């Protein structure tokens, strides 16, 4: 920005330069944007704009609730979706608020950084002419010392108290001491604001170069997982991450132990996995909630657990297939829902052709502890008296339609259009582990037992340390800025008899100016003056 210098008018004044209207508009807009009032309004807007994200379900946090909201409010939901209501914190209007805010912050803080740099390099100004006009003033007292010596001791006293101190000799043997303290307040303030910028930049880069995925991992050698996008149930890679960038490791769940209170509230979880990294040999590692498995450029977090029944189906041709089917928990007692699909059942061994009308599927619930009163929910999360309650369906499972479908429920459309028919009784059939159920066509389903499974989240955020460093620096800056107090004091030492410098005797006067709100300043000033006087006499 240009500064207009106040000078006496030159003899031939040039015609006044007309301001370029575009430049003037830009300059005024910039001034407006970087003003404190605008910053406050933007801060407020940021707080208000964050509210909808806590009221409406958010796509990145709970996509299933968003779907639910769409079915419950068919009129309103599409409109809210269009204005980013289900992804507030990634929406354009939210971003525009915080980007404007940070622009305003930079515009406000950069000039202050320059000012502060200059202030740190300049010495405190000389004493004002009228010390008694300052908020704090100690009237002149007579001293026996020589002015120069006294001023030097006063300066020493102030320096010992970590004041930035300058000693000046003025005309007629007068000495002044200027001292200032509390520069850390502004330093802290600037540090805080720049740390906020670091956090913003860190969060931005983290979302570009980070990735995460969720996976359900069943215990067993045959149900391992290797880190690639296709193996995730759900994954999200930052825009700058290529699927081939993912670190190379494989996990197998070897053991999962959960303990519970007698009320069924969980007490502890412990997952043991065999980890193979970069083609090395497998090592056994344990992790739990709050204590993730830290791998090279990835960490594995335990999110949930459940049971996966192991079922063997023997079709009408006598062919058997065994598979593990994770059932998803519905409540804290691990009442779990799921399906067991056998799309390749009833393949005629003679023709080797799959008959889509003879596919088999089972749907139902698994209760780790069936209660004696016959309730439909589990009464304890551990497997005390497990029971599997299933309905059998035969027909086209609808898996070949190309439409992605849930692996935890049957295609309701196929049931509705009659392509998939229920072939068991009105009530679900109960199976205890080891029991076999013979269906109407003579085929058999055997419940072999269960295996535990865990749900894990695997994540990598390259900038989390940077964000943490920013936050900690911000906190330090904040405390300095809130606790610091900038103040100036001046002492003027004049010879007792004017023009008689060096012949003993002087008059000392002091003044103080708090440059920020500082209620304790009068006391500190009084102490300083007292210390200066005591030093002087000793």
């Amino acid at each position: 920005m240009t500064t207009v210098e106040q000078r006496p008018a030159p003899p031939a004044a040039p015609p006044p330069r007309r301001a370029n209207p575009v430049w003037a508009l830009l300059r005024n807009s910039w001034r407006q944007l970087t003003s404190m009032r605008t910053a406050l309004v933007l801060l407020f807007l940021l707080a208000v704009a964050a509210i909808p994200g806590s009221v409406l379900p958010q796509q990145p946090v709970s996509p299933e609730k968003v779907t639910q909201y769409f079915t419950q409010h068919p009129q309103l939901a599409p409109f809210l979706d269009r204005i980013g209501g289900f992804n507030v914190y990634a929406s354009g209007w939210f971003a525009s608020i915080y980007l404007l805010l940070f622009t305003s912050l930079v515009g406000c803080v950069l000039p202050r950084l320059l000012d502060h740099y200059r202030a740190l390099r300049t010495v405190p100004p000389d004493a004002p002419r009228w010390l008694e006009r300052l908020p704090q003033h100690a009237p002149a007292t007579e001293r026996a010392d020589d002015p120069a010596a006294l001023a030097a001791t006063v300066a020493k006293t102030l320096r010992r108290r970590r004041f930035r101190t300058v000693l000046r000799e003025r005309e007629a043997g007068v000495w002044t001491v200027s001292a200032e303290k509390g520069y850390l307040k502004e330093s802290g303030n600037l540090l805080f604001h720049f740390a906020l910028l670091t956090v913003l930049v860190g969060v931005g880069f983290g979302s570009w170069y980070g990735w995460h995925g969720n996976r359900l991992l069943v215990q067993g050698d045959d149900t391992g997982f290797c880190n690639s996008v296709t193996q995730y149930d759900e994954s999200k890679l930052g825009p700058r991450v290529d699927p081939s960038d993912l670190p190379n490791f494989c996990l197998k769940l070897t053991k999962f132990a959960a303990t519970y209170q007698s009320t069924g509230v969980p007490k502890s979880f412990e997952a043991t996995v065999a980890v193979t990294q970069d083609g090395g040999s497998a090592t056994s590692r344990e992790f739990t909630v709050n204590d993730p498995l830290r791998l090279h450029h990835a960490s594995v977090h335990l999110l949930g657990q459940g049971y996966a029944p192991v079922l063997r189906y023997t079709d009408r041709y006598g062919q058997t297939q065994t598979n593990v089917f994770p059932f998803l928990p519905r409540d804290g007692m691990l009442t779990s829902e799921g399906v067991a699909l056998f799309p390749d059942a009833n393949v005629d061994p003679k023709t080797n052709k799959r008959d889509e009308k003879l596919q088999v599927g089972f749907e139902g619930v698994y209760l780790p502890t069936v209660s004696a009163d016959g309730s439909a929910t589990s009464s304890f999360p551990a497997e005390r008296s497990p029971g599997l309650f299933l309905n059998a369906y035969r027909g086209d499972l609808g898996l070949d339609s190309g439409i992605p479908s849930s692996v935890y429920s049957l295609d309701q459309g196929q049931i509705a259009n009659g392509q998939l028919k229920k072939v068991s009784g009105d009530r679900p059939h109960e199976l205890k582990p080891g029991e076999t159920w013979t269906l109407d066509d003579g085929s058999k389903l055997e419940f072999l037992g269960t295996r535990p499974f865990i749900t894990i989240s695997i994540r990598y955020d390259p900038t989390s340390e940077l964000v943490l460093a920013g936050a900690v620096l911000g906190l330090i800056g904040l405390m300095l800025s809130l606790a610091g107090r900038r103040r100036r004091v001046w002492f003027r030492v004049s010879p007792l008899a004017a023009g008689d410098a060096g012949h003993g005797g002087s008059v000392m006067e002091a003044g103080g100016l708090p440059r920020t709100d500082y209620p304790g300043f009068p006391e500190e000033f009084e102490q300083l003056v007292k210390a200066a006087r005591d030093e002087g006499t000793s």
Partner: protein
Amino acid sequence: MAELSNQLMVITVLAYLAAMVCHAAEYSFGARSHIGRAAAAPARQLVGAGAPVVPVPDDPPPTVAAEAPAVADETPAVPEEAPKKDRGALLGKIAVGITALGLLAHLGTLVTRGIAADRMPWGNMYEFILSVTFVGAAVWLGVLSRRPGIRHLGLFVTLVLVVLLGAAGLVAYTPVGPLVPALHSYWFVIHVSTVILASGIFLVGFVPAAMFLIKNGYDQGKRSFPYTLGKRVLPAATLERLTFRLHAFAFPLFTFGALIAGPLWAEASWGRYWGWDPKEVWAFISWVVYACYLHARATPSIKRSTATWIAILGFATMLMNLFGVNLFFAGLHSYANAGGM
């Protein structure tokens, strides 16, 4: 132990209630604040010294009050005036004493509950409110011991304490239970304790903030209901400065507890340091609003009353986070009712 804790909790609420009544009595009958005493006492002394027969003027002109010390110096103090003058102060001191007793019972409530559950008593909403109000009461007594002049604010402090504790007992009571595995972490102690400390101090800071606005309105000549309370409180500037200092102390604590320790724990527990969970959203909102307050207060062109309104709004967002989010929004911080991972 759990029952003992519940009984102590009742005693705590009753003690704060009794303290509130005493403060109220001091407020309405006593010669309460030092301002009130400064205005009333010299007038009485003047009357006692100079004209015992003349009835006490209801409203002595200020000039008389100003000359009073000189007159009072000439004659000894009138003894029968003293007890009457001190009754209010005595009530106030009793109120502070009862508050201190309440604080002990409050501490007992927390300790016995912690022993009953065999852990830090910060595991659910009920225990959280108990802890926040304990910090509030302790900070209040701490500040009071350094500045006895603000004693009459105790009426409003105990009011807030009684309301919050009552709400804790009515809507948030949870039987003693162990922690869910999600809370098995040393971050539990760090994150929750700093958030409790910060919330408790914000709570105490809310009282002078509200009183400043009332006093400020009263000074501007407003005489409708809430402003009438401002008749006998500290000068507006003192209230305002106390408000700022409490907030300036609580804000870094809140920053550390909610925005540094919280995300660190969230990273270990949920895999991400920030996920816009409703609790996180409202902590962010509170932080932004309190940041607004600090900025507004540091800006000379913004009126102090405007800035203080922002602090009030900040406390409202804290309450929203405590009650609104716990009771209406499902999120990862749903520990008010135990269950799940």
